[in-house]
């Protein structure tokens, strides 16, 4: 596994934020690895555990607990669609179905997503992946979705092609 120098610098910086216990840097390191590699591999788990002087299980149990961490690669652009009550009342189910259609991702009513453990469905061309997530804390402007780090609010069916076209 190649750890580029800029990632090493970020890792060291993150660990320095926790002078009392290195273990506290587990989540920050997992975020850094997922941002860099797209997902958390077995190798990453071992590497992080080694760096923080922990058993690999101490890292694995975080990956299986925290819903944001993926163990499989997502598409080039990852879409998170909020499914919780306020967004659901604003039409989140239909939005997810429409997004699945627009990205050619099989839709089984849950957007092809099977929940925790296997949350991500990837389009055949690898460009997009979709995940149903719980509340994104933007309930007043539902339905909302995130593409990568960007929040899109009050999304209508007509806007989908234009929104997706921003992601090459």
């Amino acid at each position, binding site marked *: 596994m190649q750890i580029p120098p800029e990632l090493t610098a970020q890792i060291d910086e993150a660990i320095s*934020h*926790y*002078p*009392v*216990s290195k*273990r*506290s*840097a*587990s*989540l*920050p390191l*997992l*975020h850094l690895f997922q941002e860099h590699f797209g997902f958390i591999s077995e190798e990453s788990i071992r590497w992080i555990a080694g760096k*923080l002087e922990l058993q690999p299980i*101490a890292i694995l*149990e*975080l990956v299986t*607990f*925290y*819903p*944001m*961490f993926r163990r499989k690669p997502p598409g080039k652009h990852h879409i*998170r669609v909020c*499914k*919780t*009550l*306020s967004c*659901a*009342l*604003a039409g989140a189910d239909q939005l997810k179905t429409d997004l699945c259609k627009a990205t050619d991702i099989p839709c089984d009513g849950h957007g092809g997503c099977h*929940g*925790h453990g296997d949350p991500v469905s990837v389009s055949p061309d690898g460009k997009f992946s979709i995940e149903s*997530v*719980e*509340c*994104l*804390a*933007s*309930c*007043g*402007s*539902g339905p909302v979705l*995130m593409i990568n*780090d*960007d*929040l*899109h*609010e009050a999304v209508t069916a007509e806007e989908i092609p234009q929104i997706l076209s921003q992601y090459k």
Partner: protein
Amino acid sequence: MPAPARRIPHPREKRMIFANIDREGYTPDIACYLRNGGYEDLKKAVKMAPADIVGEVKASALRGRGGAGFPCGVKWGFIRPGETKPVYLICNADESEPGTFKDRYIIHQDPHQLIEGMIISAFALNVHLAYLYIRGEFPLGAKILEQAIAEAKANGFLGKNILGTGFDLEIYVHRGAGAYICGEETGLIESLEGKRAYPRIKPPYFPAVLGLYQCPTIVNNVETLCHVKHIVRMGGAEYAKIGTPNNTGTRIVGVSGDVVKPGYFEIEVGSMTLGELINDLCGGVKPGRKIKAIIPGGSSAKVFRADEHFKIKVKGTDGAMVEKEIGVLDIPMDFDTMAACGSMAGSGGVIVMDDSRDMVESLNNLNQFYAHESCGQCTPCREGSLWMRKITDRLLAGGGVESDPATLASVSNNIAGKTICAFGEACSWPTMSFVAKFPEEFAARAKKQVPPPTPPEFLSEALTGGSH
């Protein structure tokens, strides 16, 4: 990223925390904050004795804005004077209660207000290391806060020897990773220690006794910490004049669901009723529709049915307490009356549902949420939240049996009060209240006979060879 829509504050709002939110030309950088009087309250605070700041917060009667409504000054008072262990301050920016969307705007549009509130609080509590625990789904917010912290440090408001007082403080941003339970303060602490966010067994009831790294720790919500800054500016007694006794200050409420104009509003606590909030500020429900149900304080709060009535005690003209009957829309937006009516002001997230909504479907949505978010530590909650979801799944799929509403009530009653943390209540209250308040909708979907007919080969005559 599309900029959040700018909104003009409603005339009935009283904006203090949200004074700069959606203001034309207001930017999140420190230069803009300083132009608008930023960090002046910190300069005032560092000239005060820390114990006096705690005293002002106590005098303000500020109640925590995260959901439980616990008096902030009392919480701070649990830190013993002359504490020898290090004391930590954690800002809970995990905002994840469905229906709640307030901290997001402070973090993205006015981050320095929060940082200033944190520095003042840290000074008051003799804290030298503070963490800002932000939910993982706010990646941009985390960057904005990190930038704000760097700017504050460059300007001498953070780091070593703050404003020449000899007081040192570091604040670090710590990102969560999508788990609702991290909003529970002891779960948050476990998460910050690099573990699964399993809430800790009580007692001790407060992390102020044993918190982060087994040291005294104060965990406060974003909005609460912002209020501290304004309390220092105004003085606790002056602040306490806003709102009503024991329900002081302003608070940010968010209205979502079936209203014409959903959104966030900062209101004086108790200054308007639930009905005024929904009808006057949010334009009511869509034309031709009627309100059917209201969840008043985040998804965990017990639902109100629109035609419910309550008997509450109010002060009469002669000062004596008299009993008064009020409807749901007459409930004032405060902590105490909301609780007296059987629900809670919680996190200030109001979710409105109109008469086109199926209550079984709405409950099922929440049950999916809670079944997914239970941390799995306590059996009643781990199993019960899933059972409740499975039963509402079944009701929606057309397989509901006659006893399902009673089973839902029984399961929910066996979770609340039987778990380590308040998630047990949070996950059972929706089911408990939906089933109790909309029995006709649940009964309509629970028509099948139970138990199913016993196959003939298992009838007692068949099993005993017909001897009975």
